[in-house]
């Protein structure tokens, strides 16, 4: 890609190193131009590595923090079937976190470091998980809207130029489809249930709709990194493009639910052939991202506590493994 120059190459390289860098860059540019895949041992620009590491680790953190609002309802799920489904779903999310951390590790950072960054508050995760899941219907709305938005974001990532990320996303998207469907089913059951259940469902949709739309990120004119990510074939569609498509899908699906979207401005623009939505509160988005959401402190503290409480277990496992290896060596 022409946009990829040698800016990232430090000046003090020897001529041989410089030559290797140039060859690497050339290879990288060709792979990107061919829309093919970069693999962990391939040369890549430092900025590409950094961008991916940030994106993949943030994605992994989102899966892990995202377990919390749903785990909040495991012990109170209103039927045993729903309890089983919810447990399996949250378990899937731990699995997604695991393979995303693994994908990120191929870029040269250890999972422990990423975890440290998360619990130190240095790393970001999807801001939507800083909203509380206060009723059972939130399990439906999170599945339908939040996982639905996540899928729209993530399906194109299956074609991301970085191989390990794209491949991890294939499996994640398969499971996310199922999650979205189960969320829809929860809402469908509620909206066809008692008046109190239907009200619970509508209330949850009302609360999760706007935060879900904001999951696609800031409007295009306010998303400076998007261009570079698209040039690198990491990102395939712009934030607004994805958001518009998502709205179009929700408009149809909400009818089947017998519920409404809390947005009187949703409409299909015949000229642009795109779905449009009402204004979103980007000030709130930034505030929540900056730590002012209702649950930011709680989410981090819970992760920190699990990590701290588990320290002795991890130490024991490491020590036991060391002793076993020693025994084997002696024998």
């Amino acid at each position, binding site marked *: 890609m022409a946009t990829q120059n040698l800016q990232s190459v430090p000046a003090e390289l020897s001529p041989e190193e410089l030559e290797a860098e140039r060859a690497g860059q050339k290879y990288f540019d060709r792979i990107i131009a061919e829309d093919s895949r970069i693999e962990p041992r391939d040369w890549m620009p430092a900025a590409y590595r950094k961008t991916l590491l940030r994106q993949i680790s943030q994605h992994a953190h989102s899966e892990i923090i995202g377990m919390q609002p749903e*785990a909040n309802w495991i*012990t109170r799920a209103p*039927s045993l*079937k729903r309890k089983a489904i919810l447990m399996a779903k949250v378990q899937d999310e731990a699995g997604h976190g695991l393979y995303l951390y693994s994908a990120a590790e191929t870029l040269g950072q250890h999972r422990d470091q990423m975890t440290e960054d998360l619990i130190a508050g240095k790393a970001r995760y999807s801001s939507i998980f800083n909203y509380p899941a206060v009723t059972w219907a939130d399990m439906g709305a999170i599945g339908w809207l939040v996982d639905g938005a996540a899928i729209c974001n993530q399906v194109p990532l*299956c074609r991301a130029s970085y191989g390990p990320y794209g491949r991890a996303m294939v499996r994640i998207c398969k499971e996310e489809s199922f999650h979205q469907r189960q969320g829809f089913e929860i809402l469908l059951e509620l909206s066809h249930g*008692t008046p109190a259940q239907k009200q619970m469902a509508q209330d949850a949709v009302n609360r999760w709709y706007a935060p879900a739309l904001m999951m696609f990120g800031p409007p295009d004119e306010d998303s400076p990194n998007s261009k570079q990510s698209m040039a690198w074939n990491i990102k395939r569609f712009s934030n607004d493009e994805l958001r518009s498509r998502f709205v179009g899908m929700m408009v*149809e699906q909400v009818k089947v639910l017998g519920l409404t979207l809390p947005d009187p401005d949703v409409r299909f623009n015949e000229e642009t052939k795109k779905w449009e939505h009402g204004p979103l509160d980007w000030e709130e988005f930034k505030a929540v991202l900056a730590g002012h959401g209702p649950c930011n402190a709680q989410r981090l503290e819970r992760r920190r506590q699990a990590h701290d*409480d588990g320290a002795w277990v991890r130490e024991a496992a490491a020590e*036991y493994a060391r002793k076993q290896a020693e025994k084997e060596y002696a024998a």
Partner: protein
Amino acid sequence: MTAPNTNTNTNLNTNANTANTTDFAIEGHGDISVGVTGAGASGDGSASATRITPGNALRPEDIALEVRRGTAKPAKDVAEYALRLGDDALILAQRLGHWISRAPELEEDIALGNIALDQLGHARSFLTYAGAGLAEEGQPAKTEDDLAYFRREHEFRSAHLFEQPNGDFAATIARQFIVSNYQHLLYSRLTQSADDTLAAIAAKAVKEVDYHLDHSAQWVLRLAGGTEESRRRMIHGLTLMWPYVNELFDDDSLTTRLADAGVAVLPSSLKEDFDRLLGEVLTEAGLETPNVPQSLGGGRDGRHSEHLGYVLAEMQVLAREHPGASW
């Protein structure tokens, strides 16, 4: 096991949507269709990659279907017995479920969650079957949810061990280690039950408990042989759980009657193997059987500790707020 299982459809139908160009979220890997005609989005609602048939695995829904058809109708005694096994598994699942998102490692979030999920599956099967034999004459069968959400403490038949608090990871492992040894022996024998449904549930369950046993035994070894702290905690965990061991092996008139009929496993008949198998791991771990007095038990008669009330309060609160609702 020579014939391949031709009933299991493992075809990952990921590409069925690619012909549908009405939206972009397809591309072979995931979709946000919802399987409802008219819901728009991805069109073909059957295109989800996760629609894998469960093959021959016995599901609670299968048992519920048999119950509705009247082909599974346990006698009152059998239902009572199934209720005990179901309650044990349910209360343990409830306890273990709390660990998810709180475990020492992500791998353990997954492992403990998986064990909880297995236990919940066993509970659902046993309770569904029990419900068919517990309804009053002329009334419809009680469902798994009737039994889980609308019984009170004294109506639960779980043994005390299952309601013990999670404590730290070592206490949870200690509880799981005892439970898994017990359940593994029990379900292995129960596969020979004269009652086909109990035998079928046990046959599925024992395969899963095999993993639970391996998981907990590995952790007993690791914690006992890890650091000084982990060893101290492992010993403490075992000591906390040990008073509730003997109750698992208490016989009463119900189990005696059913064992005579070849339906149930006489609990006391498992004790010798339990002591031996559990003892082997403890010996390898350099641990001793805790020397603590055994609790009186009483769970099978509905006499529980103070813990169960809180477990049930949390589990039942939402269902009881909306009696008669379906979810």
